[in-house]
C-alpha cells in the first residue's frame, strides 16, 4: 500500500516536472538566464525562510477552505458557499473584534467564534433550503456568495468603516485580537497550527467517529443511508454547517493573522481555491494539507518568476492551469504502466 502511494506521489511530481519543462522552458529561452527562470520557479520558493513562509501563509486559508469543501463533498453535497462563508467569516470576525468589549486574551477566540457562526450562514442557508425544500444547493450557494458579498459590503460601509481612512476599510483590528506570529522574519502565525489541527481533526472525524462514518455513508450512497434509517437530510445539513463553520473560521483566522483592517471589496477567491484543494486531495482531510501546500508553492514560484524576469504573470497563470489539469489527469496518474514504472506493484496483487 505504502509502496503504491509513494509511486503515485513520484509520478505526480514527475508530471509536474514534465509540464514545467514543456511550458516554462520555451518561455525561459526568451530570457537571458533560462536556467534561472526554471530553477526560480521550482526551487525559488524554498530558498529563503521568507518565501517558505509565503507558501505557508497562502496554504493556511486554502487548508481551511479545502477541508470545508472536502467535508461537504464527502457527505454528498455540492455547496459552493465556502467562498462566501470565508468572506463573511472574515468580516464577522473583524466586526466582533471591534465591537466586543472583552479583555485581551479572550478577544481573538470570541471574535473568531462569532465570525465562524456569522460566516457559516452562507453554507447553512443553502443547506437548510436543500434539506427542507430540496432546492439545489449548488445554485443557491453560488448565488448567496454574491449576496453575502454585497450585504457584507453594506455592513462594512455603514457600521465598520473607518472614516479617517481614505478607502472603504474597517477600523483597525485591535492589537489584542491579532494572532501571534510564530517564526521571526515570516508572517507565519498561529493560524497555520490551527489549520493543521483542523485537518487532522477533520480526518479523525470523518474516519474515526460515528458521525463522520454516517456522513460518508450518506455521501457514498444516499439510498443506502436511508435504508439504514439514517436521516440523510440532517446529515447533509450537518456537513454544511460544519463546512461553513470551518470556512468562516478560516476567514477570521486570515483576517486576524495577516490583516490590519478588513479591506476586501470583492470575494477573495479562497473558497474556489478550496474546491481545487479538495479535489486535489480527493476529499481526504489529511491530504488537504499537501494539496494546499502544493498550490501555495505553485503560486509563490509563479510570482517569483513573474517578478524577477520579464515573463508576464499571465503566462505563469497558463502553466498553473495546465498543472492543475495534469496532476488530476487519471489517464496519467492512474495509468498502471506509468505507475509500475515508478515502482508500484500491480494493484491486482494488493487484493
Amino acid at each position, binding site marked *: 500500500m505504502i509502496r503504491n502511494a509513494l509511486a503515485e506521489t513520484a509520478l505526480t511530481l514527475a508530471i509536474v516536472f514534465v509540464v514545467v519543462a514543456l511550458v516554462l522552458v520555451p518561455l525561459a529561452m526568451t530570457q537571458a538566464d533560462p536556467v534561472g527562470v526554471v530553477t526560480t520557479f521550482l526551487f525559488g520558493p524554498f530558498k529563503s525562510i*521568507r518565501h517558505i513562509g*509565503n507558501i505557508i*501563509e*497562502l496554504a493556511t*486559508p486554502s487548508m481551511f477552505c479545502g477541508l470545508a469543501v472536502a467535508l461537504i463533498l464527502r457527505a454528498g453535497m455540492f455547496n459552493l458557499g465556502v467562498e462566501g462563508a470565508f468572506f463573511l467569516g472574515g468580516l464577522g470576525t473583524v466586526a466582533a473584534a471591534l465591537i466586543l468589549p472583552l479583555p485581551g486574551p479572550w478577544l481573538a477566540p470570541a471574535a473568531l467564534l462569532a465570525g465562524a457562526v456569522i460566516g457559516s450562514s452562507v453554507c447553512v442557508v443553502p443547506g437548510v433550503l436543500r434539506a427542507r425544500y430540496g432546492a439545489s444547493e449548488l445554485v443557491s450557494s453560488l448565488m448567496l456568495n454574491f449576496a453575502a458579498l*454585497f450585504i457584507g*459590503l453594506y455592513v462594512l*460601509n*455603514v457600521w465598520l*468603516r473607518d*472614516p479617517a*481612512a*481614505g*478607502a*472603504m*476599510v474597517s477600523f483597525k483590528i485591535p492589537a489584542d485580537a491579532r494572532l501571534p506570529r510564530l517564526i521571526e522574519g515570516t*508572517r507565519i502565525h498561529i493560524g497555520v497550527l490551527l489549520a493543521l489541527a483542523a485537518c487532522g481533526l477533520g480526518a479523525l472525524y470523518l474516519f474515526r467517529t460515528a458521525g463522520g462514518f454516517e456522513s460518508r455513508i450518506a455521501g457514498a450512497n444516499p439510498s443506502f443511508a436511508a435504508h439504514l434509517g439514517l436521516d440523510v437530510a440532517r446529515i447533509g445539513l450537518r456537513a454544511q454547517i460544519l463546512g461553513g463553520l470551518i470556512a468562516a473560521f478560516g476567514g477570521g483566522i*486570515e483576517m486576524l493573522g*495577516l*490583516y*490590519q*483592517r478588513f*479591506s*476586501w*471589496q*470583492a470575494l*477573495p*477567491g479562497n473558497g474556489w481555491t478550496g474546491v481545487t484543494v479538495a479535489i486535489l486531495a480527493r476529499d481526504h482531510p489529511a491530504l488537504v494539507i499537501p494539496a494546499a501546500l502544493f498550490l501555495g508553492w505553485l*503560486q509563490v514560484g509563479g*510570482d517569483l518568476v*513573474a*517578478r524577477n524576469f520579464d515573463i508576464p*504573470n499571465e503566462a505563469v497563470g497558463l502553466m498553473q492551469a495546465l498543472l492543475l489539469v495534469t496532476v488530476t489527469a487519471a489517464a496519467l496518474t492512474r495509468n498502471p504502466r506509468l505507475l509500475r514504472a515508478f515502482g508500484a506493484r500491480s494493484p491486482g496483487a494488493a487484493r
Partner: protein
Amino acid sequence: MPHLTRRRFNTLLVAGAAIAAVGVPAAHASEPKKIVFLVNGNLGDKSYFDLGALGMNQIKAKYGDAVETKVIEMGTDQTKWLATFQDASEGDWDVIVGCTFEISDIMVEIAPQYPDKTYILIDGVVPFDEGKFGNVYSVTFKQNEGSYLAGILAAGLIADGTIPADWGKSIGFLGGMDIPVINDFLVGYIEGARSVTPDIKVAIAYAGSFNDAAKGKELALAQYRGGTAIGFNVAGLTGLGQLAAAKEAGRLALGVNSDQEAIFKDSDPEMASKVASSMLKKVDVTLLRAFDLYIAGTLPVGQTESIGLKEDAVGLVETGNMATLAKDPLKARIAAAKAGIVDGSITVSSGFVVSQADLNTLRDSVRP
C-alpha cells in the same frame, strides 16, 4: 496595429520634447538608479495603474540608461502584497512605488525596516507624525477639484442650452463602488454643478464592479432613460460602458483619469464624439515629477503632498470635443473656477471626510 503605434509614438514625442526642455541631467552616477512600481492589481485598468506604468515609461524615456525601471503586477490577492513589497525592499531597488490607500498599511510595516530605500506612495498616507517614515514620500490627489470643473461643465452645457432641452435636465454619475475615493469625485462633481445650477439633479449609480462594461452600459442607459443629459463615469473598465451607452442613447459622457476621447478616437470615432471631456488625474506626471525631485535630491520625503489643480495634477481635458462643444462663457466660467480653486477663494469639499450620513443627505438632496 497602426493606430496604437501612432499613439504611442506621439507619447514618445511628447516625452522627448519634455527631455529636450528639461535637459537630461548630467551623467548622474555610474550606477543606474533602479525604480520599481508595484501594482496592487493588474494593469489594463485605463486608470492610475496604467497611468503609473506610463509614468514609469516616461521616466525610462527621459533618463535612458541612467535608470532601470520595472512594473510588477501583484494581482488582487491582498495577502501577497506585503510579501512582494518585502521582496522588492530586499532587492537592490532604490525607489519603490505603490499606490492606492490599501498600500498605506503595508508601507507602514515595511518602510521603517528598510531606511535606505525610498518609497513613493500615491493616493495613500502614512502617519508621518510618528516620525518613523523619513523615507516615504506620499502624495494624494485632489480629484474633487478636477471633478468640480467636470460638474461645472456638465451643468453648464445644460444651462446654456448647448444640450437640447429634450435630453433631460439632470446630470449623471456612475461610480465603481460606494467607497471614499469614488465619492471624492462625486462630492466635487455635485458642488461644481451646483455652482452653476443650485437645484441641479444628479442621478447616481454604483456598479459594484470595475471590470463589467456591459453593466456600466446598462446603468448609464437607465440614467439616460430617466432624463440624464450627460453622465460622468468613475468606474474603470465598467465606466467605459457609459460611453457605449452615450453613443446608443445619443447623449454625452464625461471620462475620468485619462483622456477617454483619445482611447476611442481611432477605433470608434462616433463614440469618441460623445465624450464631452475627461477629468484627468495625472498619475504619470506626478510620478515623473517625483522621480525628477528624487534625482535632484529634493524629494520631500517624510511628508504628504496633496496636489490638485494648483499643481496641475488634476484637470479637465480642454482640447478635442470640449474645445468645440463648450461655448466661450462656459469655458470662461471653468477657467474662473480653476483660478478660484488655485488661489484658494473656492474650496471644494472632500469625499474622504464626509460622514456616511452627510453623504446620504447630499445624495438624497440631488436625487432626480
